[in-house]
């Protein structure tokens, strides 16, 4: 019996507080006096910043590549459906986010700052109070609106070519949580030792945004809220419903852990059946690709040819095709393999 994982979307529209269940970290970092484009990336390395939107790419490299960009985009659109952590951070820690954004913009020389958030009138009104110096752009709240590619499409008016990174078009897209970390280091002298994340257990109606120390065992986080986690009926998904992975409670919270979700095992169980060629994957793909045709080629090893390579480059492994497939074919896992054939 298959059941869908229920998400209380209505409840998520509420603006939630940000909780601190664990003691705050100590100040260990001296801070900097002036933002120097040459030295700023090194500063990011020193505080240990990686892309906190889930990418995990060292932020210093991204900043160096983006030197000379004209626009800084603060990505405050949740990367995954059902999470509210980006918007919580934007609302409750706006000082840090804004400081981080201004610093990053200075370092690359960007003159325009855009705040990308999801379309929600209460949220927009609140943000307008806090981010006066930013240009606020509202995006659809349907997954995967938070992908860099789709943000650029809206800002540029057309979709960027396959394989082109935002910095090649003069944009630096940074996640709100990454910018918060920069601001935290600048203002408080605290390196990246905290991770804001969404902790949720939909079956128990539990959904909180919390700040936890990086490196803490996941088990401790669950215990702090006394979540009724039972490994026989539940499993732990780290980082989200669409692009996340199953995590072991004994492992530690990483810098890229967007969320910890306790989900019922039977609801996520998938058994692959033959493709019925319904085309749901094609219709659902936000980039208009042909996922099953790609997967067929990957499975048969026919990975040459321009149409294949172009589409494979364009795909950003959002997982929408897998989610809608009525036959539960693990399309996105195959596409990941296909990425390696490029």
């Amino acid at each position, binding site marked *: 019996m298959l059941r869908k994982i229920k998400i209380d979307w209505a409840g998520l529209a509420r603006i939630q507080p940000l909780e601190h269940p664990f003691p705050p970290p100590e100040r260990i970092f001296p801070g900097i006096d002036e933002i120097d484009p040459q030295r700023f990336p090194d500063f990011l390395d020193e505080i240990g910043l990686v892309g906190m939107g889930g990418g995990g790419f060292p932020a210093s490299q991204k900043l160096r590549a983006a030197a000379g960009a004209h626009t800084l985009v603060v990505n405050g659109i949740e990367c995954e459906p059902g999470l509210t952590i980006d918007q919580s951070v934007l609302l409750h820690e706006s000082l840090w986010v804004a400081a981080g954004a201004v610093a990053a913009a200075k370092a690359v020389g960007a003159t325009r700052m855009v705040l990308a958030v999801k379309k929600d009138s209460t949220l927009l009104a609140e943000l307008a109070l806090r981010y006066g110096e930013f240009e606020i752009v509202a995006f659809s709240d349907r997954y995967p609106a938070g992908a860099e590619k789709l943000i650029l499409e809206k800002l540029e008016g057309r979709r960027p070519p396959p394989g082109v990174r935002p910095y090649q078009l003069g944009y630096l897209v940074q996640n709100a949580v990454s910018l918060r970390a920069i601001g935290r280091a600048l203002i408080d002298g605290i390196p990246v030792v905290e991770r804001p994340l969404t902790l949720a257990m939909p079956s128990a109606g539990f959904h909180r945004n919390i700040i936890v120390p990086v490196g803490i065992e996941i088990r401790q986080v669950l215990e702090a809220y006394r979540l009724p986690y039972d490994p026989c009926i539940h499993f732990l998904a780290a980082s989200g419903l669409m692009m996340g992975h199953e995590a072991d409670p004994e492992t530690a919270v990483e810098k890229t852990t967007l969320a910890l979700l306790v989900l019922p095992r039977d609801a*996520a169980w998938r058994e692959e059946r033959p493709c019925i060629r319904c085309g749901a994957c094609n219709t659902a793909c936000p980039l208009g690709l042909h996922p099953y045709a790609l997967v067929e080629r990957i499975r048969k090893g026919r990975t040459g040819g321009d149409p294949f390579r172009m589409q494979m480059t364009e795909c950003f492994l959002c997982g929408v095709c897998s989610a809608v497939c009525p036959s539960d074919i693990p399309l996105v896992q195959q596409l990941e393999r296909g990425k390696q054939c490029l």
Partner: protein
Amino acid sequence: MPMNAPFLRSGPRAASMAAWTLCALLVPCTAYSAIYHSPFVFKLLGYALAGSFAETLFALAVQRRRKLVCSGSALTAALLAASAPPATPFLPMLFAILVAVWGARLPWRGAALRFNAAMAGRFFLMLAYPAAVVAWGTAAPDTISTATPQELYRTDGFMLDWHTVLFGRVGGSWEGLYTLVPGSPGETWPLATLLLGGLLCRAGIVPWRTPLAFLLSFGIATACLGNNPLFNLFSAATVFTAVFIVTDPVSTPMGKGGQVAFGIVVGAANALIRNYTYYTEAVVYAVLLGNLLAPWLDHAAFALRGRQLGRRRPEQ
């Protein structure tokens, strides 16, 4: 066994899709049975069971797998039964179902070229038992009975009242000469069928592009050939085909563009065949022709998308 992302799912599951379509098909058939006091709907269920059982046997013999409920094959059999005259004898129908399930549906699984199994069975029925396919209704003298008023329209320019066409209550007599009896059960209630099709689209069980393209292209082609498009749309198997036949996932293209192209080709072919030949079952040929084109359409759509993406790449 680790769980694989995405953990979220949306839309219907494959097993229930065919079952829901079958339920939708049962609605007009039950109405037909109730109004014309015919045991047709029970026959239909029996045929559906036979189709399902045929797949069970196939799974046991070929795949060495036990599979009890096979809604896909049940749907194939039911569609076949609903598009044929209700009076088709049992044996020809059974053979047609076996041909459809064992010949057209199961062995081709996973292949790119697939034929619509119900239409393949229908084709077999037309070749092997031409007499059975046109045996609409009773054999009383002076009775004209066709699947729908379509043939009368062709030969005599005959037209029924709108409400009879729309609501499927075909009956009574024509010019005091001919008794009219209702025909093929699946095709009798165009309006209700259209409504059910809309519901199925909303539930995400059938795509909407294929049927819409089919209906539009058929309507326009018919109008261009000088026939009354509305009458043709609402009579004969047109709506039935749009909702139940061209939406069959396995034998139609997967991409959006491919689906539209498929609908256009089948609709236009249907109108042309109907106008220029004496085959009354134009739909069967049109759909099988479309099925032949489907893999090619898919391939073309894939290459086209790749080309579009390539063109966006800046020349450096």
